[in-house]
């Protein structure tokens, strides 16, 4: 078991997502940076479906009531185990009574804690991913107990390796495909969009990232159609909105671009004022 001493700013249990329920209007959810959480799970020899703790901006403080192994991945939140600094992307043995604490991010935005065997929280509609209205809670709370399995130190004697690599969060270029309404933009507008120097606005969360400045356009709204995480919507008032993991399943704004899977993960490590530009993949 893990006892939550401090919850952090917005910490939740997430896994690979709630695949199969979007036809009922249920978002896919799941980890924002799948590359980082997959890396953590791989280093523990976990299934890629194993649930992890996702922390945003400011991390949690946790007390372990079981021995296990952990990996911290994604954003750097200056993790400490019993006040001793730890590094990301490395399996760490943890004992009963140990206290793991995280600070504010120094690089990136989303930090992951993977535990050997994954978190054993409730499964709703085939997933452990927290989402308001679907799971009982949408964030973890102080004094809450999170269930995990206990592993003795005989396991994981040899360090695990993974082909996955942590990537450089400072890369600002996002790879994109044309969205369904890209061709409704004029040639000049298409060029301008693909050459835009954009920044993350102050409005960003698990549902969507709003970019700035505005992008003037005269596209009309469309008949409500399907949308995906990574869809870049362009509103009539010129707002560029990149949908993320908790996004709605359908929407009525023109879908001008679609981020590649790797670029969704990269964007998840950006925060207010970080620079963004697009590069079109054919």
């Amino acid at each position, binding site marked *: 078991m893990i006892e939550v001493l401090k919850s952090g700013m917005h910490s939740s249990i997430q896994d690979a997502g709630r695949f199969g329920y979007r036809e*009922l209007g249920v978002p896919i959810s799941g980890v924002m940076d799948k590359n980082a959480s997959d890396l953590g799970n791989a280093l523990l020899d976990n299934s890629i479906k194993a649930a992890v703790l996702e922390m945003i901006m400011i991390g949690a403080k946790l007390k372990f009531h079981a021995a296990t192994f952990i990996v911290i991945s994604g954003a750097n939140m200056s993790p400490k185990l019993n006040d001793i600094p730890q590094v990301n992307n490395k399996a760490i043995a943890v004992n009963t009574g140990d206290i793991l604490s995280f600070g504010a991010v120094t690089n990136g935005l989303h930090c992951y804690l993977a535990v050997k065997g994954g978190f054993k929280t409730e499964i709703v509609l085939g997933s452990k991913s927290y989402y308001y209205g679907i799971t009982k809670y949408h964030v973890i709370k102080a004094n809450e107990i999170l269930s995990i399995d206990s592993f003795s130190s005989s396991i994981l004697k040899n360090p695990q390796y993974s082909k996955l690599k942590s990537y450089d969060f400072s890369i600002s270029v996002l790879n994109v495909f044309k969205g369904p309404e890209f061709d409704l933009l004029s040639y000049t507008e298409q060029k301008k969009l693909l050459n835009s120097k954009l920044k993350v606005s102050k409005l960003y969360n698990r549902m969507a990232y709003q970019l700035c400045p505005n992008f003037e356009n005269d596209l009309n709204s469309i008949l409500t159609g399907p949308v995906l995480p990574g869809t870049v919507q362009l509103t009539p008032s010129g707002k560029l909105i990149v949908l993320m993991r908790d996004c709605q*399943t359908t929407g009525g704004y023109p879908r001008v671009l679609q981020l590649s899977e790797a670029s969704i993960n990269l964007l998840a490590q950006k925060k207010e004022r970080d620079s963004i530009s697009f590069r079109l993949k054919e």
Partner: protein
Amino acid sequence: MSYDLKYKRYGERSILIEWPQIIDENILKNILNYKIKLKNYYSKVKLEIIITYNSILVIYNFTIDNINDEISMLKSLYSRSETQEDFFGTTWEIPVCYDEAFGFDLEHLAEEKKLSISEIIKRHSRPIYTVYFVGFLPGFLYLGGLDKSLYINRKSIPNLNIKKGAVGIGGNQTGIYPKNSPGGWHIIGNSPIDFFQIEKQNPCFAKAGDKVKFKSILREEYVSIYEEVKNNSYQIKTIS
């Protein structure tokens, strides 16, 4: 019936199939038919299919290696003969209280449309609406069939806290908010019914192709149905 469809790549893992941009029951039938063919063809593959008024999005659980091959396959599947299923299933009777305690925007709508409040209620509860798809929020039904005299543009500034059960009109659409949510529609009433019950095997009772009829109820009835829903003893009525 066969349409000239557009097939578009949508990211690494999805293909979007589009019909003409209109709300039409023949298109809905065609979409539901195609969806069944897709589900049968891919019965052993893990994928998701989202439908809307004029599109099907096929979301694979893997990167599509050869987009052109996949699209040819989808096209040949579309040209196969249609299944003979009757998609137009259940007609659900949805109780709605149009009392001004719930219908915050009724007065404004009445002024804008130069209709009395009772006339708006009559015109909203008279049609039998078609469920085109479920989207936006868990259990949010996209309905077609709104009386043209009630069309009204969405609010320019969305309301940040629309209550669960709120019945609204936005553009040429009407619908019920299944949970508290921000939204830009004009609110004219509230239904005491749950549109998404996570503990049920089938969390959302209505599906694409079903019909919906609103029944105007008084505040007293609202309260008693609300209690029944809370105690899990309310049975949603169907019209045959």
